[in-house]
């Protein structure tokens, strides 16, 4: 899945929130991305930041402000947010 050096490979900048940002040590995580699904992206994030793996399992992924299931493709350069379980109110 890691084809970062192949042609067309891009970067993906992920917005992280709350406890997820704290575990990752950043609110904006950049990872190499050669394309794949939201499910693939989850694996890539867990690989890049093992500390977030547990909470990531329980988090939702949004692309361009819309929730995306694991089979949705993610383009390099997409606006991706990782949203841990919410606790507003």
């Amino acid at each position, binding site marked *: 899945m890691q084809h970062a050096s192949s042609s067309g490979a891009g970067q993906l900048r992920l917005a992280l929130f709350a406890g997820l940002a704290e575990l990752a040590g950043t609110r904006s995580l950049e990872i190499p991305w050669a394309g794949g699904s939201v499910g693939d992206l989850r694996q890539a994030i867990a690989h890049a930041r093992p500390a977030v793996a547990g909470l990531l399992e*329980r988090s939702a992924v949004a692309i361009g402000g819309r*929730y995306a*299931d*694991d089979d949705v493709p993610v383009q390099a350069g997409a606006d991706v*947010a990782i*949203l*841990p379980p919410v*606790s*507003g*109110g």
Partner: protein
Amino acid sequence: MDERMQQTHRGERDQVRPAADGALVRRPIDPQRLVAAVASPEAGANVLFVGTARGFTNGVETTGLEYEAHDSMATEALERLCTTAVERFSLLACAVEHRLGRIAIGEAAVAIATSAAHRRAAFEAAEWLMERIKREVPIWKCEEWADGRRAWVHAEPAAARSGDAGHERGDGPVDAGRRRSRGRGRRR
């Protein structure tokens, strides 16, 4: 947004009075302003709910809370919930504000104002809105305790939903969990 504009241009009232308005704010919430915003001569009931930062949970002292949000998604979700509440409960108007940033114990974290011809709809809509806000709007709370520790609250998926509108753990992002589980099978 359109509703706000329509209300503004209608000019029947002396102030902007959106029928359904949800917003994130980074300043103290003024509950009375929200009630005024939903007031209507057709109303027989205005309900105001104010969720405040509780100082003790299960005997543990909380010294403050901090909230953050995915701003655009949370704002959109709050607006959509308000619009849905107006339709679902036949409200005359509805206004919600959720505060972000650090808040002190006793301060309002969220406020909901509804107006309806009769009280039942106004009460039920406020309760429904609060439940939905806690379950699905991308807002997060960090609890700060008296011993200096702090932690973001992310409910376990198996945790039971609570009817309490306060700040206990145990409410989950039900919709996010459901969404997540659909595509999960082949990877686990």
